[in-house]
């Protein structure tokens, strides 16, 4: 327990709490309608969007788990870097079209879009359910990142309440200001979060290697340590891991922006040009992520020992060991706030999906925008409560398994969302069946390795299960589309026009 670190930590936490509540009056809008509460009025510019998306995609769990993987396995954990390199050229080419059609037609979720494109409630439900299922464990993992920090700070006590109370309090505060301020709260808090994260990482990358005798020495120690592990790792890839490394990077990159929380941030921007510009500027976060991954090796070289196999504690323990107490407090606050921002956006995104595509679609077709916002606010609370119960009541490993599955599942919605942005050739029934096949096969593949990893060998090639399932998904879609189109089966009425995909706002 370190008083200086805890005081710095609490002051910063109090500051973002005030900011979260103040956010409700920032760029004031009528928060009783859904596009104001859940998309911050679609008015975020390049600068705020950069922070919002950065805070949204590079989560506390990322900061803890990526170096933890490097710490425990070596080079394979670095796949996060090619992943976050190639995601942006992809986003630059594809997402402006989705932004445009959503803006022109007033869509709030990806499910709104596929429903209109194919006149298909089935596809919309598939997108909504997949999105909600994949998001829930992701929120739970943000709590895991918070717990790692609180534990190393020494704020947590013993016993059921003592251990979990700080986490519950932090999360309850987050839930209340998300309820009152909607997406405006994480948008403002993200600016503080990322400033703290950048300060922490720049300091870590300058100070720690110098203190540990330079990167050459760090890598030499790491290589020796990884070789000695019961399951040996290395600072370079084994040739049989090449396909795994590349397919993990590719699959993760293609899936990332079709998570509901990523699309919510994209749809909240004020113009198509904001999306294009951010694809060019967001890689600054990827550079930071690369250095964060290297923290795993620094932890090895610094002689950090984690209790049991809990490698998630590697980075917080490294910071505690290498930083002055006040700076350790700041770094801890950075990671904890780094969990609050994505948790808020994820719960808003899940709430938007539930409200638009399940509640309004199946239970209250006549719901007004005010009723929609009311339901979404309550759902955002329920989602967070669910994640909390999940983390406190179910073994941690289960959340990690589910999050692995989440990535595989989200990939299966890519053919219907991305494919349809360019052509109306695909048949809606083929897309739905392809999705179903991909979901079942992807899940079965992960189950075949007891969910311990997302890597599965197909014809002797070890690769990411999400990519294998996607290939099968696409094969089903193409073959069935050919058959259904040949048989002239009705393919729904398209509510969008070609021009909608190029539309921009006046302010561009």
């Amino acid at each position, binding site marked *: 327990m370190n008083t200086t670190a805890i005081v710095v930590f609490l002051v910063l936490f109090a500051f973002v709490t005030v900011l979260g509540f103040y956010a409700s009056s920032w760029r004031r809008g009528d928060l009783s*309608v*859904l*596009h*104001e509460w859940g*998309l911050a009025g*679609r008015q975020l510019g390049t600068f705020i969007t950069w922070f919002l998306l950065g805070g949204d995609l590079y989560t506390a769990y990322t900061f803890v788990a990526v170096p933890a993987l490097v710490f425990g396995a070596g*080079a394979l954990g*670095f796949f996060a*870097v*090619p992943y*976050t*390199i*190639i995601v*942006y*050229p*992809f986003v*630059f*080419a594809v997402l402006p079209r989705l932004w*445009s059609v959503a*803006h*022109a*037609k*007033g869509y*709030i979720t990806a499910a709104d879009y596929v429903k209109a494109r194919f006149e298909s409630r089935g596809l919309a439900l598939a997108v909504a359910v997949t999105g909600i299922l994949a998001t829930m464990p992701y929120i739970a993992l943000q709590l895991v990142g918070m717990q790692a920090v609180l534990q190393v700070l020494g704020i947590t006590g013993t016993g059921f309440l003592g251990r979990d109370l700080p986490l519950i309090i932090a999360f309850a505060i987050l839930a209340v200001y998300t309820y009152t301020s909607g997406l405006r709260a994480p948008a403002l808090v993200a600016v503080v979060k990322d400033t703290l994260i950048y300060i922490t990482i720049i300091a870590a990358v300058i100070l720690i*290697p110098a203190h540990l005798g*330079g*990167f*050459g*020495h760090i*890598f030499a120690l790491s290589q020796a340590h990884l070789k000695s592990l019961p399951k040996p790792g290395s*600072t*370079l*890839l084994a*040739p049989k*891991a*090449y396909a795994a*490394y*590349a397919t993990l*990077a*590719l699959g993760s990159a293609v899936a990332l922006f079709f998570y509901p929380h990523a699309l919510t941030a994209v749809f909240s921007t004020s113009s*198509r*040009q904001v999306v*294009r*510009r951010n*694809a*060019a*500027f967001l*890689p600054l976060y*990827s*550079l930071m992520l*690369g250095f964060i991954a*290297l923290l795993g090796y620094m932890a090895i070289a610094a002689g950090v020992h984690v209790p049991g196999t809990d490698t998630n504690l590697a980075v917080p323990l490294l910071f505690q060991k290498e930083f002055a107490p006040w700076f350790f407090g700041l770094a801890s606050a950075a990671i904890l706030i780094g969990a609050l921002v994505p948790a808020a956006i994820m719960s808003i995104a899940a709430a938007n999906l539930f409200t638009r595509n399940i509640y309004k679609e199946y239970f209250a077709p006549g719901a007004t*925008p005010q009723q929609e916002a009311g339901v979404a606010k309550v759902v955002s609370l329920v989602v967070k409560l669910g994640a909390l119960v999940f983390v406190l009541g179910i073994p941690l490993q289960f959340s990690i398994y589910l999050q692995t599955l989440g990535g595989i599942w989200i990939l299966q919605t890519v053919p219907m969302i991305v494919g349809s942005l360019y052509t109306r050739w695909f048949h809606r029934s083929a897309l739905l069946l392809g999705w179903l096949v991909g979901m079942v096969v992807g899940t079965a593949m992960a189950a075949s390795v007891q969910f311990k990893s997302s890597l599965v060998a197909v014809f002797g090639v070890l690769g990411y299960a999400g990519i294998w399932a996607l290939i099968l998904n696409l094969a089903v879609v193409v073959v069935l589309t050919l058959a259904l189109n040949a048989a002239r089966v009705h393919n729904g009425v398209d509510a969008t026009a070609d*021009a909608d995909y*190029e*539309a*921009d*706002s*006046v302010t*561009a």
Partner: protein
Amino acid sequence: MVRRSASAGGSRWWYLLLLLPFVATLLPPIYNRATPALAGLPFFYWYQLAWVVVSALITLLVYALTPERPEARGTERGKGR
């Protein structure tokens, strides 16, 4: 009001440049080496970190080469219905 963003000069072919980062990073055999090291970082690491920057510059270049000029297109902006 919604405007249509017509490409204002600049060929769509420039988008093909965006494939370069994929080729450079999705083929690990071309960079899975320890040497030459840079400031103690094995080639594997600094090569990929360098591509973060190169890829961002390529994206920025394509952004600059494919300017979009908004044109009026008289439909109502449908804010979240």
